[in-house]
């Protein structure tokens, strides 16, 4: 048993297993998050990220394995765990009819602060989260970004030592997303231990000290962003095909150049292919191939690998390839994803 004096990790997970009927959401996950660090849990929809967060926040019981938060077992000492955590989920869990201030004051009261305490804590958080101007308007009139900030503020009312953020930027516009990143960075700088799930690879790259890649209920890689990029072992040639109907032709045309299957984003028309150490040589071959096939491209470039490429290299499929597009490769993710109740429909969209 890990003690609470800070000698053990803030979060320790061993052999965590959870099934929903026949669907095996988690198939034996191990995690360890040191105090004051940020762990990015990266994976596509249905990978098991939300299930893991729900177990760690005492909302679900695991079938097997154990999980400790601040040294407390999430099943046997759930009450102690709840006193040390904050949770901000995928949707804004706020009472829309009430004002931002009332939302935070009520949460404060439920943390058993006195009324004056709850009021001052709410005012403090509203100021810190740049919500003071809108504080006395009903939360339903807030923008999406403001609602998520209010939700995050609510998760901080009890001053948690460990904060769980389940896809904190899903569905946000790019500007709000950057604002959220700033907030998360300053929380981390303040010493809060953070576990952050995301399906956006750049987000994990930006925010996390350490990244765990989860796919189909298993941890398939662990490391820093740099270490994971090292796994791809080379450069990437990337370009955009403006005419989406020609994407397939482009992929055929460059078929023999790369060191693996090209990574294709059908929505944006971006195609990337790992070319190992043959950078400029491969670049010329790609240009010839595309020219020969008569496919028009934009922004052809040679670049260092991104985590997208890492994901492709690790799993054989792209991170964005979720239940919506995954069908053509016959993946069984549909069932899994449908078990994850929350609003994920808009998830893959902003992943560019």
């Amino acid at each position, binding site marked *: 048993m890990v003690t609470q004096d800070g000698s053990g990790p803030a979060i320790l997970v061993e052999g965590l297993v959870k099934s929903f009927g026949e669907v095996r959401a988690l198939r034996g996950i191990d995690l360890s998050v040191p105090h004051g660090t940020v762990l990015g849990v990266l994976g596509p929809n249905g990978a098991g990220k939300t299930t893991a967060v*729900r177990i760690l*926040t*005492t*909302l*679900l019981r695991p079938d097997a394995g154990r999980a400790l938060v601040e040294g407390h077992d999430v099943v046997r000492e759930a*009450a*102690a765990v*709840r*006193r040390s*955590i904050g*949770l901000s*989920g*995928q*949707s*804004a*869990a*706020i*009472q829309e*009819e*009430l004002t931002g201030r*009332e939302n935070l004051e*009520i*949460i*404060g*009261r*439920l*943390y*058993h*602060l006195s009324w004056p*305490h709850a009021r*001052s*804590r709410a005012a*403090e*958080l509203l100021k*810190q*989260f*740049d919500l003071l101007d809108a504080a006395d308007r*009903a939360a339903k009139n807030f923008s999406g970004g403001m609602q998520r900030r209010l939700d995050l*503020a*609510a*998760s*901080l009312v*009890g*001053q948690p030592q460990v904060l769980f953020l389940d896809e904190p930027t899903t569905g946000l516009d790019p500007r709000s997303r950057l*604002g959220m990143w*700033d*907030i998360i960075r*300053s*929380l981390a*700088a*303040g*010493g*809060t231990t953070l576990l952050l799930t995301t399906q956006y690879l750049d987000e994990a790259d930006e925010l996390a000290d350490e990244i765990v890649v989860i796919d189909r209920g298993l941890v398939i890689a662990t490391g820093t962003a740099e270490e994971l990029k090292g796994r791809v072992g080379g450069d990437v040639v990337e370009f955009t095909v403006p005419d989406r109907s020609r994407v397939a032709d482009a992929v055929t045309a460059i078929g023999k150049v790369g060191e693996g299957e090209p990574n294709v984003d059908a929505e944006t028309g971006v195609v990337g292919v790992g070319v190992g150490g043959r950078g400029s040589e491969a670049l010329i071959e790609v240009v010839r191939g595309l020219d020969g096939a008569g496919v028009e491209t934009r922004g052809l470039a040679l670049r260092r690998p991104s985590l997208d490429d890492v994901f492709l290299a690790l799993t054989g499929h792209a991170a964005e390839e979720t239940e919506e597009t995954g069908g053509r490769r016959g993946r069984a993710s549909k069932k899994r994803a449908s078990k994850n*109740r*929350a609003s994920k429909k808009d998830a893959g969209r902003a992943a560019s």
Partner: protein
Amino acid sequence: MTAVAAESGAPAAPSLPSSPGPLVRARWAVSDTLTITRRNLLVWLRVPAFLVFTVVQPVMFVLLFRYVFGGAIPVPGEYVDFLIPGILVQTAAFATFGTAIALAQELKKGVIDRLRSMPMARSAVLAGRLVADTGRMLVTILIVTGVGYAVGFRFDNGVLPAILMIVLATVFGLAICCISAYTGLAIGDEESVQAFGLIWIFPITFLSSAFVPIPTMPGWLQAFANNQPVTYVIDTMRALARGGPVEASLWKSIAWLAGIFVVFLPLAVRAYRRAS
């Protein structure tokens, strides 16, 4: 925005005791329930549509049955005296739609997840919901009684039976509230919850002695209408309001209501605990 919570330091730091004793926990259970009750009542006051449904709709029903349908329905005595207890019970039952829908919404939005991940009393969300909704229901019942008085309804049996009638209507509403809370948490989808509510709340209120004397129904329907809790409760309320034998229907009402509490309160609590 610059500094954020964690660095903000401790002016308002809630130092949560590591393991509160039973007395502290009991006090928290009460204060958490009151906080949730207050929140729910605030939401109710903020949404004009809720007020319309809780107040205007039952009043429309009173007027509709008093002046449109009532003349065609022969009953012993004045129809308005027959009607008001029935309307009150229907009002109480319909009010519980709000309970089921609100819980389903909170579940969907993640509000219940948030509350369950906090160190608050586990019972408070459900208890606060039942208290607030029962309070809301009592307000509606009093308004409808007032409107009833305005259109000719009278308590002919004294003050205490009149109060008992109001109490019985409220307790009945609370029992139905438990069923609705269970369906809201177990189904978890607002539209489905609403549709399901129609399927059971409409029949139990209309297939009763609420609006017409049961002997006017076909035999097979009488068998149902005569032996279901809504009829017992309404018959008791009529006897309390106008005088007449109370006991038989009162005991049956109490037995049914107790049965509903015993079955559905634990079911609702279990659905809350397992909500996901």
